[in-house]
């Protein structure tokens, strides 16, 4: 059932965070990392053009240069072909306003980057398990 690879798009500009993330995902995951909103846009556009597989999960940092995580979220959730891709905000901010903004723009989750590494690995494991393996999603995209 899980024979095909899990594809994750992670939009993050901090090298340290990218590195850390990589530490905690297994090799079954095909991870694409882009470091700004514009690259993320072009990446998704390219997938559409080439009719390639869309990612199973998109993880967005909020503070990104130029196009912010929220703008990207908005873009994804408005696009007919992308809107059902589980999109989780992954930020160091636990500001209520950010959290409210995320959910009111139809984010599928909001995770505050944990300080503790144990918590960090559990967080990634949990939301990946849920959105990629547990949750039933619409097929038509």
């Amino acid at each position: 059932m899980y024979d095909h690879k899990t594809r994750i798009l992670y939009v993050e500009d901090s090298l340290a965070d990218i590195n850390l993330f990589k530490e905690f995902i297994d090799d079954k995951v095909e991870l694409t990392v882009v470091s700004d909103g514009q690259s993320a846009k072009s990446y998704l556009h390219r997938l559409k053009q080439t009719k390639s597989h869309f990612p199973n999960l998109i993880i967005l940092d909020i503070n990104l240069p130029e196009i912010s995580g929220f703008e990207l979220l908005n873009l994804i959730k408005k696009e007919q072909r992308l809107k059902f891709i589980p999109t989780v905000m992954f930020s160091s901010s636990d500001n209520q306003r950010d959290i409210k903004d995320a959910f009111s723009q139809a984010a599928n989750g909001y995770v505050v980057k944990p300080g503790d590494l144990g918590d960090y690995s559990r967080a990634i494991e949990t939301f990946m398990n849920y959105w990629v393996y547990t949750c039933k999603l619409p097929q038509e995209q």
Partner: protein
Amino acid sequence: MLSKVSTFKTVLENLSDGISIIDKEGKHVWINKAMATITGFTKEELLKSSPPHIYWPEEELDTIMKALGETMEGKFRNFELIFVRKSGVRFPVLVNPSPIENDEGEVQYFVATVKDLTEVRRVQHELDDLAYNYRVLHDNTSELICRHELDGRYKSVSPSSIRITGYRPDELIGRDPYEFIKEDHLEQVRQNLHEQALAGNDLIRTQYEAKRKDGTIIWLDTITKTLLDENQKPTELVTISREITELKSLQTKLEENNRELKRSNMELENFAYIASHDLKEPLRTIDNYVQLFEMRYSHVLDDKARQYFEFIKSSAKHSIQLTEDLLNYSRLNSSEFPYKEVDMNEVLENVCSQLQSRIAKSQAKLVYDKNMPSLVGSHILLSRLFINLIANSIKFKSEEKPLIRIAVKETINAWQFSVSDNGVGIPKKSRKEVFEIFRRLRTTDDEKGSGMGLTICKRIVEKHQGEIWIEANEPKGSTFKFTISKHLKESTNV
């Protein structure tokens, strides 16, 4: 039948004024009772006395002799003289002499009425004093006191008008006060002061701007009083006005300063928020990598390197804690915490469940009255307040198991809560400073906090318009007391 003479005698005898009949030598021939009463001498003493009489004070002899002389010469008039009582006390009298003639028309005796003026003088003095006081007040008061017709026109004006308005009282009498009030305050004065006064509402007060004679504008603070006739109908109005121009300008300045202070305070808080918020991210990264480094490489470190690494690690942890607390503190000001009706029983239940592991670990006992009130406040902030106070009590426990009591009592304007413990207590001199930012008392190393817990408590209490303070608990430990105002309003904007 009563003889005329005896009737007269009885009347004279019983008059309240003194009566004395003297012969041409000035010796008493007859005196009434009042003469004795007034002077304090007995009738016998008086009848024995000859000029200078025993009730003539030595220093008045000249004056009295002169009066007697005039009388003897047939010049009858009233004399105001000073007599002396037997006790030595001098007192004023009004003496009114007249002649008594014999059948041949010769003057044989003189009769004098002697009126004791002591009481008259006393009352007169009192009246003079009163009049003087009123004059002094009226003439010298710094306030402007005016009487007005019902339509407002001046009936009388105190001299202070010169200083306050530049007009002399006589320049104002008969004129309409509305001439002098600044246009944009006319309606206010008419409605708030004049109409209220006419409706019989006393001591109404209003503040407005008026024009002085020289054209400068002053602020007046005026209070009214309505005078009523016996049918309770207003007859005239009295106003007392105080010039408050300087007060007003100070007030305006104060308000400006306050606004500025608020603005810069907000800026500072904003800065604290942004700084701590932005610092959090790199600090978390440091923390993450410190842990990752430890996981992957601690086995290859020698003792010295491990020691250095431990320093880095604990500093990173501490910085994160500080930043986190600073962030929480500066966030208290945001509108994130709406005020709603809060059931304090629920707050404390929530607090207990959040502190469960800490309470269990320290074997603490938490006791509180199950009849906590409902009040308006922020559920989240009030929970945090109790969590911080209880955590503080646990942190500073004595060698005994912590026993923490929470109680509440109602006062007129607030709810007063107390959190008492049996911990190490806080020395009197530190009881204020523990609430200051980043202030930390002695703790063991593993309890090291940022010292923000109590500062946050203070801030939360202040946001609920209350106060927080520490008292010693008997026989040991501390009692934290704080109030939450009963006058808070529920937030409407959320």
